[in-house]
Structures are given as structure tokens and as C-alpha cells.
């Protein structure tokens, strides 16, 4: 009996380790659940809405929930990211338009030195609110791994469009119109 117990125990332990490895790999990789839901037209609730993040320029922490009732263009960026530099003027222009229609661009910087992020804001004269995700936990809840990434959120706090990469004017026009009408 004992002679058979050891191979069974070793096999079970090996299977457990393998299962742990598979779970670990799948849990650590960026989630694409949001993308799938948006692609199917099922607009998911924006995750981490109550997660309070400090404002980049200092002051009190803000959560996404405080923008409920507005169309939000949630943009993850960092100062070292070249596509982020390209799209910054576009986002600022969008902000000037959205302000008139009860909407806002909301920047979230992460994986970046805060002084560099602030310098970036000044360089591109960004007037929209920018938050700092120091731990990266908020970005991770969106499956964000690369920069820039942009999520369009409607007035009900649901994600209606996603861009994992640099955005352009055509994407913003289409996505914001959809968010305003949904």
C-alpha cells in the first residue's frame, strides 16, 4: 500500500504544481474581457470606479465615480511614451469640445516619474484632470499593459469603446458620438 502511495503522492503534487503554474500565467496576463464585451455590444461597467487616485498636481484624491453622468474619455499615458506625446494635443482639443457637452477627458498616468508627468502636462498645456496610478492597480483592472490606452465611458459609467494604442480623431468622433447616444 505504502509502495503505491508514494508515486500517487508525487503525481498529485506534480499535477497541483502544474495547475498552479497554469493559473498563475492566466491570472498575471492582461485581461481582455472588457474588449470582448465591448466588441459584442455589451457595454461593461467601467471597473475600479470607486478607486480613488491622487490628482497628479496634488490635492484631494478623485475617483471615476465622481464623473458619473458625464461622457469620460479615460486615457492612460506616460511622459516617456511617444504615441502619448502625439495624441496629447488631440486629447486637449477633445477636452475643449467635451466641456461644452458635459463630458471630460480624464488622464491617468502610471509607470512614470511624477515630475516627468507634470512637466508633460505643462508642455502640452493639458487642462483636463490627470490622476496618478502609482501602484498600477487601477490600470490593471482595465487590462492595461501598454501605453497609451483609451476607454470611452458613457453617462451610465459603461465602457462603449476601447483603443489599445494611439488614438486618432476618427476614433474619438465615432466613440464619443456612440457614448453620447448610448
Amino acid at each position: 500500500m505504502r509502495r503505491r502511495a508514494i508515486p500517487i503522492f508525487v503525481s498529485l503534487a506534480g499535477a497541483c504544481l502544474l495547475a498552479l503554474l497554469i493559473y498563475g500565467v492566466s491570472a498575471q496576463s492582461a485581461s481582455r474581457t472588457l474588449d470582448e464585451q465591448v466588441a459584442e455590444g455589451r457595454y461593461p461597467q467601467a471597473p475600479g470606479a470607486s478607486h480613488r487616485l491622487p490628482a497628479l498636481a496634488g490635492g484631494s484624491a478623485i475617483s471615476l465615480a465622481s464623473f458619473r453622468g458625464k461622457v469620460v474619455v479615460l486615457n492612460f499615458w506616460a511622459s516617456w511614451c511617444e504615441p502619448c506625446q502625439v495624441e496629447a494635443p488631440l486629447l486637449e482639443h477633445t477636452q475643449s469640445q467635451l466641456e461644452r457637452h458635459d463630458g471630460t477627458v480624464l488622464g491617468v498616468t502610471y509607470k512614470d516619474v511624477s515630475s516627468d508627468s507634470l512637466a508633460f502636462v505643462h508642455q502640452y498645456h493639458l487642462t483636463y484632470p490627470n490622476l496618478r496610478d502609482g501602484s498600477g492597480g487601477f490600470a490593471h483592472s482595465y487590462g492595461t499593459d501598454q501605453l497609451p490606452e483609451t476607454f470611452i465611458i458613457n453617462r451610465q459609467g459603461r465602457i462603449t469603446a476601447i483603443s489599445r494604442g494611439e488614438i486618432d480623431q476618427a476614433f474619438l468622433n465615432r466613440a464619443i458620438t456612440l457614448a453620447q447616444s448610448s
Partner: protein
Amino acid sequence: MRGRARALLIVLALSAPAIPGAGATSASASTAEPGSLLPRIERQVMCVTCKIPLNVAESPQANREKVFIQELIGQGESEAQIKRALVAQYGATVLGLPGAHGFDLAAYLVPIAVVLALLGVLALLLPRWRREARGRASRASPSAALDASDAARLDADLARFD
């Protein structure tokens, strides 16, 4: 008993490198020369976008991270202070160490569990191996003794060489 203790030492020695950070603590002395501090920190921290050690990373973010470390070294910060500053800016992932909660805890617990399991298996197997070895030895000893005719022949052969 001595054999079992030796087996235990071997298992512990083999499993030590598997425990995360086991070897890293010795490298955290804060009295390093500024010139050697940069490469040492670069070896110990990660490029947070490319997810490889910073010393082999080449990307805009990695370059900025290197400059940031260099600035802190220039300000006379110690290794521990620089690491804390890196965590404050880039999050805990910059250290490349598993966290102490959730799934990450497995990185610390699994090696311990594996060592304990190996010790358990050894505790089961060693007595059996020793019993089997003793049994083989006792079975082998009667055949090793020479019978009377062989002993006489051996004596005769040896006498020829004298």
C-alpha cells in the same frame, strides 16, 4: 541516522536557491561605492514596461528609469532609499519580487511545501532503503564465505606463488 541528516542537508542546500529573494538580501548593503551602485540596482530592479531586468532593458521607459536612479545616486541616496523611491514612482512591480498576498504568496509557500514534501518522502523511503540494503548484505554474506574445497584450492594456488 547520520545518512538521514546528510540527506536533509542536501535537500535544504538544493532548495535554497528556489526561495525568492534568498540570495538578494546579502546584496543590499548600503555602503556601496556610487560607481558600483548603479549597475547593482539595475540588476535588482525591473524595467516595468518590458518586464526584464533593467540592466538588459533598452526602451524609452527603461532609459528614463536609469536616469532616475542616477539622479538619486547623485543626490547621495542609499540603495534602500532609491528602491523606496522607485516603488513610489513605478509601483512594487519595479522590484520584480512576488507580493506577500494573494496568488503571489505561492512563490514563497510552494518552495517550502516542496521541501517539506521531499523530506516526508525521504522519511518514508530512507528506512526502507536501509532495510533493503541490510537484507541484501545478509543475503550476500553466506555466498561470500569459501567452502572447504575452494579454500584448499586457494591455499594451493597461493603456495605455488610462494
